[in-house]
């Protein structure tokens, strides 16, 4: 696992992680909450209506609202996973694998890093697995001196391991 290759930075100089995090939060606080409220309003309307056909139509609308909320969650997670913000790289990668039913083994401590570092580490792995999903893989995230080192074993068709060093003051 240790590498004798020279460290190479992965985070681009212009970091967008805080903007992405804010964008996901806006989805949560705005449209997502409005959809939940809309769903409640539809549920109330179902109670007030007597016509079975009208009630059935409202229930179909409610199902549609649920589908939209689910799609909004997927988009939000692609922008900045809520678990990454709440709990860091390890839990976020486990959530990523769980959603996609990937047999991903994640070895990561509870240590938190600055947003740009966590985002770089998370998206390095997620992008690699998005490009070639469905293969067994192990990912380890560890601090090594002034860097966070992300090591991905398997998960790509060529079977090569990949390693990313992210500067972390």
């Amino acid at each position, binding site marked *: 696992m240790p590498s004798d290759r020279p460290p190479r930075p992965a985070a681009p100089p212009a970091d967008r992680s805080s903007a992405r995090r804010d964008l996901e939060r806006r989805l*949560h606080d705005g449209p997502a909450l409005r959809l*939940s409220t809309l*769903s409640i309003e539809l549920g*109330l309307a179902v109670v007030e209506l007597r016509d079975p056909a009208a009630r059935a139509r409202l229930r179909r609308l409610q199902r549609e609202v649920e589908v939209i909320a689910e799609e909004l969650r997927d988009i939000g997670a692609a922008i900045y996973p809520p*678990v990454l913000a*709440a709990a860091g790289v390890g839990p976020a990668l486990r*959530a990523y694998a*769980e959603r996609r039913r990937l047999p991903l083994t994640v070895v990561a401590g509870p240590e938190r890093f600055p947003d740009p570092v966590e985002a770089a580490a998370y998206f390095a792995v997620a992008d690699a697995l998005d490009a070639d999903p469905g293969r067994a893989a192990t990912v380890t995230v560890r601090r090594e001196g002034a860097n966070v080192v992300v090591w991905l074993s398997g998960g790509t068709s060529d079977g090569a391991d990949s390693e990313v060093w992210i500067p972390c003051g």
Partner: protein
Amino acid sequence: MRVAVAEDGALFREGLVMLLQAAGHELVGAVPDGDALVALLATEPVDVAILDIRMPPGPDGGLTAAALLRASHPGTGLLLLSHYAETHYLMRILEIGSERIGYRLKERIAGVKVLSDTLQRIADGEIVIEPALAKRLVEAPRQADDPLSALTEREADVLRLMAEGRSNGGIAGELFVSGKAVEKHIASIFTKLDLPGDAAVHHRRVLAVLAYLRSRRVEG
């Protein structure tokens, strides 16, 4: 049933209040944050408190308030609502309690029947988990060497009852064994499942829930 609501989104809170009243529940109060809920329940007991996870105080004020309420009012049911259905939050909720507790998506409890069913199951002592999350957990790829297969039949019984939210005393009563015997079984389950000591509580609860869900084949 007597209920109280804590949610910082005013429109959602008002809608939820109306839905609860339409379902025939007695609303003790509706407040915008966790601290106000804790203060309210200090004098007004409820059967179930409904809490948004992401509200003041702090980023996850609903979880903070839920932990306080569980300590001060262990018999009060807790329903945590969120826009997210994530294992991370489930684990944190199960650290607060593994009985009389629920975790559901906000837009999925928006009917009189589903809301009342959820509240009733929590009041009855059950764990209620958002079906989509439960399904994801059940369908997660299992390790080739499934550690649960190492459990004896009796240990599997203990694990199932833990997952149903029973206390150690309740498990002992159900299985006609002593409390000491139950503790021994639980220690053995931890060892066989190779649970790290520092994370035993939430791992124990999550694994118990997983085992329970798998055995029940819960549908999403």
